């Protein structure tokens, strides 16, 4: 069932008044009156329906299916709707991605939707200040600057977006083609390097992983429970993996992630040396009679454990033990995380790790073909950092006259070295299709407020497909701010202006999407099902299963394989790890109070940033928890409070990604620090991706100390009361067989 209200031809005011027992305070929260919540008699309005809806009982919630858009994993959701307002989100149990589960970012989606810092009407920058304009004026201005009459040359209009998929991606491609423009897809948290390696190694970018079938998982920083690929999906895979016979999880990373905290064996590795460890393991496996792939044949001779121990800081005994475990527990699964991929030699490092899978015979067992998505025009166009650099260069070279931003905040996520805010001044007309006053909107000339994902139509075909599925996104309530278009509606409006003959047939994106879905081949519906019945069934389920043809996955030979050890010591003795979190993500969720309030998975810190440093590093610097450190790279410095724990390599300093906003609303502004700002603009040579985890920094105490606010102070001390029973690590390893 779809929300019938959406189709009613009502004015905004009337809609509000229709909403049953919704109180005036609540219903007008985003409108022209201040919020009034009171028990006093005669203060709040309580407005009845004009005519009752059959299914709507005031006080009783109705659940609708949709698709989450808080990250690109595309989890299916159910939203509870009461009196026309969405109140609670849960996972869709039928989704092959998240199986009814939903992470905290997904749960906090209602705070994205009801956020008090949303833009409510279009704004135009005049003499530096934003002034309100009408929707008509805004669209007219866009038509003037980008319509056929503007006569923009080839490539003069650019879209910068996050990951897109589904029919929005198809319409985006159509608009790019219509204006002969250019598209940049940007995400900071991206498996782009891994995808490039997969493409070369397997011939496909996104193979399917079967963690549940592995007997042992060796993860080089792949935080698959937190931030890697499709975390909610891998959490259910992980639960299977841990069922008897219990799979062994070994995590090797420079700074502990949520997945690392769940591992049987967690090893700190010197940042940037993951490739050397992978080759060292290949060496040991080869010594024990496991045939090495051709690409490694001439390489691994240099990686005897004694040398690898020196490079990585992982002891010889451990290397031997890991190789032995890998040999004994087949099939296994070896995964490269973001820290392994985000290096100046990210491609080689990732390739070395993936080649271990080839060597161990995991290909075809725990790694299989992802298959061919039947609708290539709907497949995910994943964002990356290469496009960010390309866009910054294009802006520098004055290659664009008009740029549209959607679902992306590059001014925040770009390293200061790219100088993006300044370079944007070279683009005469910048339009932010955005919900929030973020750092990029602050540089734009026109603000076009957009619908939240709970108000929008769409389809989503996430890049990582555990089982072929297109998620359907439907509004869970009427838009809070009249006029705000969803991405699909905005694109349709732009396309209509270009080609009324082709796109004029659809009044809105809803109509377009309905026709697109009902035009799918007959195999997707049950025999004799009418268009309307089929459409309703897709809406009810919130998804459409698609058949993905998949063959056998075959490893191809890789060539030109060369890995050198990263530098150590010098003026900048530490490596900065801007660690992603299943909370702020790349910074997009820093404006959600629930996310700020939820204690960090590792440090338990709330509402702040911190720098994780090893006790030995802290002793060398003479700092304690709460001491403010200046972390400086060649590109700049940030100030962060120290958090001292052993879950970080002594050569690393980890600062969570996503805080340190200059703008982005009341909850995010001026809170913590943004480690992305001080990254060196170094890229991986093969893929052009930013080496996010390869920046060398130095940390200096500023002499200032502030309390680091976290849930559970003294959380290590149990005050002699055995609050949580413990056993020694040695005993644990004996019982767990690691």
């Amino acid at each position: 069932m779809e929300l019938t209200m959406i189709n009613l031809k009502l004015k905004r005011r009337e809609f509000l008044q229709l909403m049953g027992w919704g109180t005036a305070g609540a219903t007008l929260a985003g409108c022209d009156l201040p919020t009034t919540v009171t028990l006093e008699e005669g203060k709040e309005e309580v407005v009845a329906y004009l005519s009752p809806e059959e299914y709507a009982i005031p006080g009783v919630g109705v659940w609708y299916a949709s698709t989450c858009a808080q990250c690109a994993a595309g989890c299916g959701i159910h939203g509870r709707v009461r009196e026309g307002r969405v109140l609670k989100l849960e996972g869709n149990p039928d989704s092959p991605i998240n199986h009814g589960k939903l992470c905290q970012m997904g749960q906090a989606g209602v705070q994205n939707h009801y956020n008090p810092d949303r833009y409510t009407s279009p704004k135009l920058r005049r003499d530096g200040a934003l002034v309100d304009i009408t929707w008509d004026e805004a669209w007219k201005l866009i038509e003037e600057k980008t319509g056929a009459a503007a006569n923009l040359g080839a490539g003069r209009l650019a879209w910068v977006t996050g990951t897109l998929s589904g029919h929005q991606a198809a319409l985006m491609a159509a608009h790019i083609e219509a204006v002969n423009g250019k598209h940049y897809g940007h995400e900071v948290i991206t498996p782009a390097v891994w995808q490039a390696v997969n493409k070369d190694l397997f011939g496909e970018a996104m193979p399917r992983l079967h963690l549940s079938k592995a007997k042992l998982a060796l993860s080089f920083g792949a935080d698959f429970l937190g931030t890697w690929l499709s975390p909610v999906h891998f959490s259910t895979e992980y639960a299977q993996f841990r069922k008897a016979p219990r799979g062994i999880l070994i995590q090797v990373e420079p700074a502990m992630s949520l997945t690392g905290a769940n591992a049987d064996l967690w090893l700190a590795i010197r940042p940037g040396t993951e490739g050397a460890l992978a080759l060292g393991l290949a060496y040991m496996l080869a010594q024990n009679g496991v045939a090495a792939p051709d690409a490694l044949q001439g390489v691994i001779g240099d990686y005897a454990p004694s040398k690898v121990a020196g490079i990585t800081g992982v002891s010889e005994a451990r290397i031997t033990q890991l190789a032995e475990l890998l040999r004994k527990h087949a099939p296994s699964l070896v995964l490269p995380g973001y820290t392994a991929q985000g290096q100046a030699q990210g491609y080689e490092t990732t390739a070395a790790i993936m080649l271990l899978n080839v060597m161990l015979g995991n290909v075809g067992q725990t790694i299989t073909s992802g298959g061919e998505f039947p609708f290539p025009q709907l497949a995910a166009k994943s964002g990356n950092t290469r496009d960010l650099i390309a866009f910054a260069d294009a802006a520098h070279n004055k290659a664009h006259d008009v740029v549209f931003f959607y679902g992306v905040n590059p001014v925040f996520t770009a390293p200061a070295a790219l100088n993006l805010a300044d370079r944007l001044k070279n683009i005469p007309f910048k339009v932010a299709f955005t919900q929030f006053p973020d750092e990029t909107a602050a540089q734009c000339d026109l603000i076009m407020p957009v619908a939240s994902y709970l108000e929008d139509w769409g389809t989503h075909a996430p890049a990582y497909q555990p089982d072929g599925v297109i998620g359907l996104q439907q509004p869970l309530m009427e838009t809070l701010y009249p006029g705000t278009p969803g991405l699909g509606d905005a694109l349709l409006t732009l396309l209509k202006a270009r080609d009324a003959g082709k796109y004029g047939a659809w009044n809105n994106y809803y109509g377009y999407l309905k026709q697109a879905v009902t035009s799918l081949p007959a195999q997707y519906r049950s025999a004799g099902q009418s268009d309307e019945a089929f459409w309703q069934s897709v809406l009810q389920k919130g998804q459409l299963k698609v058949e993905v043809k998949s063959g056998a996955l075959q490893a191809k030979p890789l060539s030109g394989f060369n890995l050198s050890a990263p530098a150590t010591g010098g003026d900048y003795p530490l490596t900065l790890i801007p660690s992603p979190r299943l909370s702020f993500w790349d910074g997009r969720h820093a404006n959600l109070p629930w996310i700020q309030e939820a204690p960090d998975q590792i440090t338990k810190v709330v509402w702040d940033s911190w720098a994780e440093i090893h006790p030995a590093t802290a002793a060398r610097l003479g700092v304690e928890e709460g001491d403010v450190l200046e972390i400086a790279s060649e590109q700049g410095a940030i100030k962060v409070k120290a958090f001292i724990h052993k879950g970080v390599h002594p050569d690393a300093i980890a600062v969570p990604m996503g805080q340190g906003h200059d703008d982005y609303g009341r909850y995010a502004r001026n809170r913590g620090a943004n480690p992305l700002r001080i990254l060196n603009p170094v890229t991986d040579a093969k893929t052009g991706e930013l080496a996010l985890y390869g920046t060398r920094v130095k940390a200096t105490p500023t002499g200032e100390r502030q309390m680091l606010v976290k849930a559970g102070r003294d959380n290590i001390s149990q005050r002699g009361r055995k609050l949580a029973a413990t056993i020694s690590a040695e005993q644990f390893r004996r019982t767990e067989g690691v």
Partner: protein
Amino acid sequence: MQLIGTSRTRAGRYGWLAAALCMAGVLNTASAAEPVSMQYPIAPQGSYKGLDVQQPIEFPHDIHTAVNKINCLYCHTYARQSKVAGIPPTSKCMGCHSVIATDKPRIQKLTEYWTNKQPIPWLKVHDVPDFVHFTHERHLKRFIFDNPEVMNNLSVDTVAPVCAMCHGDMRAKTVARKDKPMTMGWCVSCHEKNGGPGDCWKCHK
């Protein structure tokens, strides 16, 4: 019937707890495990002098109930199946008033709202804070639908006294006025006398 089914499920789910509390002497008269013989509830003590609220239309509850003997639940129909009693949709008013009393000024005002497709902006009189989970459904089940005294002689004059426990006697008023304190102590006094749940999270959840 759906209502009763739902309620039974709930009783089943929490029945063990009610039984445990009963054994501990927390609940003394009624529990989900052992229904007591129904009778008119003992109304909670306490009164409150509420404000006279100027509603957009001075709706005469007294004419509808005391004179025309229309059951409360005919208009406040959601009360039996939801936490809120609900204000009747305007279409329900017009069901009668498109022909009845069309010459009266209040009905003409109602008709004007209806013709303009404008819902009537009634002002809320009875409310509890957001941290209180009060449900009409449960209270109506206990005091009306499970109460033979009401059900064997169902009319506005048997139902209205139940509603009056919290809302005052609507048969004697035009628009609603708050006549009861609606404080926690007042709620609890009724729960104690009538065997309602005494555990905190029943209402604060």
